[in-house]
């Protein structure tokens, strides 16, 4: 076995994954080749480092946490309630606006049955412009009469 082939097989050899015949050839090469033997030492050294590496235990409460997450996801997946709650407020606002628009339209139609001078008067009477901020006899009217600032 040549050095190139040996180096390719060092890692599987360390893992015990080399077939017996190949393993024996490799061992006989290592016995006579210092450079490959040094490479083997390095590979075996890395492997040995893991021998002391610890195996961990999952933290306390791990299983319970997993099952809680699983339940939470299942609930989220199958329930429409959160979706309905989220959009209920917006739906109520839209309905109120639509009802207001429809009833306003009905009201206007009943007050202004046809267009013309009469209809314009009714429209004007609905306008806020017809209201006087200081009608005669009011405190505001008296004050403005005294100061002469009548708008």
């Amino acid at each position, binding site marked *: 076995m040549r050095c190139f082939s040996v180096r390719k097989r060092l890692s599987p050899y360390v893992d015990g994954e080399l077939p017996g015949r190949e393993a024996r050839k490799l061992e006989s090469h290592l016995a006579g080749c210092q450079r490959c033997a040094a490479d083997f030492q390095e590979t075996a050294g890395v492997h040995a*480092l893991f021998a002391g590496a610890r195996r961990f235990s999952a933290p306390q409460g791990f299983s319970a946490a997993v099952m809680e997450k699983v339940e939470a996801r299942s609930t989220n997946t199958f329930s429409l309630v959160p979706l309905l709650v989220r959009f209920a407020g917006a739906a109520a606002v839209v309905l109120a606006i639509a009802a207001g628009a429809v009833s306003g339209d009905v009201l206007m139609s009943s007050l202004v049955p046809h267009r013309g001078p009469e209809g314009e008067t009714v429209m004007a009477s609905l306008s806020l412009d017809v209201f006087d901020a200081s009608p005669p006899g009011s405190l505001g009217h008296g004050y403005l009469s005294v100061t002469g600032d009548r708008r």
Partner: protein
Amino acid sequence: MDDFGNIEEFKKGDVSAFEELLLKYKDRIYTLCRYLLEDHHDADDAAQDTFVKAFQELKGFTPTASFYTWLYRIAVNTCLDQRRKVSLRKRLFVSDGASFLDTASSQSPSPESDYETRQALLSLQTTLNHLSAKLRVPLVMKEVEELSYEEIAAALDVSVGTVKSRISRAREEMGRMMKISRNKTG
């Protein structure tokens, strides 16, 4: 009951069958996550997410491979996603190698061997942290989880030759890094 028996029971609606699988594999999956992610909180999150995903996917599981290689595949993908998420944090706050060591030394017989153990583990984590995920994952699966090349290949969905070559390269790189480290300190 074996894994496939538990899976069949779970498919019939028995959640406790899943809990049995969880109890059986939680330590192995958590250990894998600890070696792939340095931070134990990240490892805890990733391990939990692995089982949550497994729960969601288990009804569609077909027994072409063993359950645990399937579970390992989920765990590896979850860890890689988690690594991407925390990569910026890791770049900003480089790990000091303490996470493997925080509870490792209590069983050591003497202060000297305790020190040696800590140094060895520190060296292990430091070099592991510098390996790319491509090399690190199969090496950890081999060395820590003690899976065969075939099992690793099934879990990672690559050929046995690729696993062999990646583990070999991982060891070469780790050996090279450790040699550099020894030369610096010696």
